[in-house]
């Protein structure tokens, strides 16, 4: 091993930057969250827990938590489930699997902001392709479905501006964008399931595909699932692009899509209320770090590296 002091030169820049760019900001946010600081006004007052009190009592922030958790609660199970489903289907195909893989991965590559604008267009109530396509189904058997008949009689939903639909529509776009990523991770996980296990399971009486999935595939995919769920959670917590593109002011109809990242942006950057923004940041970091630590704990407990 080298006895030179070269390592100081190698490590010092990284350590300095880690401290200044990643750790110091957390400390700054923590300190500011107890003040009413705003940019251009250096006389910040200590306000104690007032900012946190607001976050946990005011109805605006209640809406923020509801919107954020609804979004996360929809996007995580759906995009993990669809990712797994797509991976299993593609993996069992004899041909053309790669084609589907490529298609499903496309949204992951595309700038979400650009695709949000396109979706807004596709979901436009009058000229959008979605409602036009739905309208062509009127007068057919689909009209037996009450929701559909109502759409035909009046209008199909204003997907993005109706408060009963807005958060679900935004979540749908989140699923659309993210499940291909999960699919690829699951496909990678599937290749590492040893073939012999299936044969062994079959000998032990696992006859149906469901048995094989339940007894072999799903347990073997455990580590992948832990990782996929965590990363999807963290990504969905950070949703911003779609919300800002659709609702530059105020977070959607009746603030139903007022997610946390947008709240930080609106309070701190647009309204220069740094104290409250910092408090939301701290709460947000709390969630995200908790999730990641949970994942690490689960991985260390359950996962066995070969």
């Amino acid at each position, binding site marked *: *091993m*080298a006895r030179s002091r*070269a390592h100081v*030169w*190698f*490590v010092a*820049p*990284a350590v300095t*930057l*880690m401290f200044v*760019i*990643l750790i*110091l*900001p*957390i400390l*700054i*946010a923590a300190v500011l969250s107890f003040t009413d600081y705003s940019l251009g006004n250096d006389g910040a007052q200590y306000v104690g827990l007032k900012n946190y009190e607001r976050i946990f009592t005011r109805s605006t922030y209640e809406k923020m938590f509801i919107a954020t958790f609804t979004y996360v609660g929809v996007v995580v199970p759906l995009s993990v489930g*669809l990712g797994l489903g*797509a991976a299993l*289907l*593609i993996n069992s*195909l*004899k*041909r053309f699997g790669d084609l589907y893989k*490529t*298609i*499903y*991965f*496309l*949204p992951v*590559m*595309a*700038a*979400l*902001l*650009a*695709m949000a*604008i*396109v979706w807004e*267009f596709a979901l436009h109530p009058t*000229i959008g*392709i*979605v409602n036009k396509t739905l309208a062509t189904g009127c007068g057919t058997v689909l009209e037996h479905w009450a929701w559909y008949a109502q759409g035909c009689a009046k209008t199909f939903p204003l997907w993005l501006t109706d408060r009963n639909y807005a958060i679900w529509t935004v979540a749908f776009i989140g699923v*659309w964008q993210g499940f291909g990523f999960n699919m*690829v*991770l699951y496909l990678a996980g599937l290749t590492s399931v040893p073939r012999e296990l299936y044969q062994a399971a079959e000998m032990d009486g696992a006859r149906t595909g469901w048995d094989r999935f339940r007894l072999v595939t799903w347990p073997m995919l455990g580590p*992948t699932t832990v*990782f996929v769920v965590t990363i999807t959670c963290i990504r969905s917590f*950070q949703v*911003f*692009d779609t919300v800002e593109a659709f609702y530059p002011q105020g977070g959607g109809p009746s603030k139903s899509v007022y997610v946390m*990242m947008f709240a*930080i*942006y609106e309070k701190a950057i647009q309204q220069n209320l*740094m104290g409250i923004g*910092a408090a939301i*940041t701290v709460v947000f*970091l709390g969630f995200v*770090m908790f999730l*990641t630590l949970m994942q690490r704990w689960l991985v260390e407990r359950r996962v066995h590296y070969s």
Partner: protein
Amino acid sequence: MSDATATAAVRERSSDDQFVLRWSSREALKHAVLIVGALIVLLPFYVMLSYSFKSPSEIMTNTGGLIGLQEPFRDDYCVKLGNAAEDCMVTPVIYNYTTAFGKAPLLRYLFNGAVVTASIFFIQVLIALPCAYALAKLKWWGREFVFSMVLFCLLIPVHAIALPLYIMLSKLGLTNSYAALVIPWTISVFGIFLMRQFFMTVPDDLIDAARMDGMNEFAIIWKVMLPTAVPALLAFAIFSVVAHWNDYFWPRIVITGNRELFTPPLGLREFKGDADGDNFGPMMATATIIVTPLIVAFLIAQRRFIEGITLSGMK
């Protein structure tokens, strides 16, 4: 639907080594499900591409198929400028794409995007590689501490601490500059972690041999370690470039108003902000132009891209 059944006509190798064309309903059902999924996934891409070809009236009435009829239409803005109506007839696709480049400095945005993503990647490597090497292959006091610091920092998403970073940068007077776009991303703890794991697998003999040849530690990093790390670096490059080319949140915060510094997503966002009925075509053209480079690169080098993007799952 006929596509689904056609693709399900599966060739199977039978026991006596003959190819038999077999129709399997299970297989057909799988394809049917996957095709429906594919149609939904592709829908916005279709809308984007198709509308970037069409005239305003075709967009409004939703006619013209994929690429529109390409019948010339009158550019009202051109008429407003005092030109004769017959000089103002434009072909939709040409109008959309020239307006995309003409109405806003789109080339400038693309240039900014390229400069920012390239700078971020090079600085990340410049900082992360030596640190990863020291963590993996040198023994020194404090190594465990620095590595646990790396593991801790992996917990912090940079977007989440955007607010304090913004305050720091504005105190330094750095908002609205390239520096503001690049600085928060110069340190990639993920890059350090990844490279360290990779360097752990490089045999010590290789490094000792290099030392015997009289190479100093700096030379070892750039002449021995860097070349061995190319596959991992490539994957990391894709990961980094995709993340920062597509990033909207951070540029949105630190770049206010100064168009000269807009990245492609910011440019598109502004376009949307003042779009009226006639501008949907050009707006979709802009979106297409912004999304295309990565999509095309992805289609060409799929395996590498999927490797790179899912890199974070390789732990």
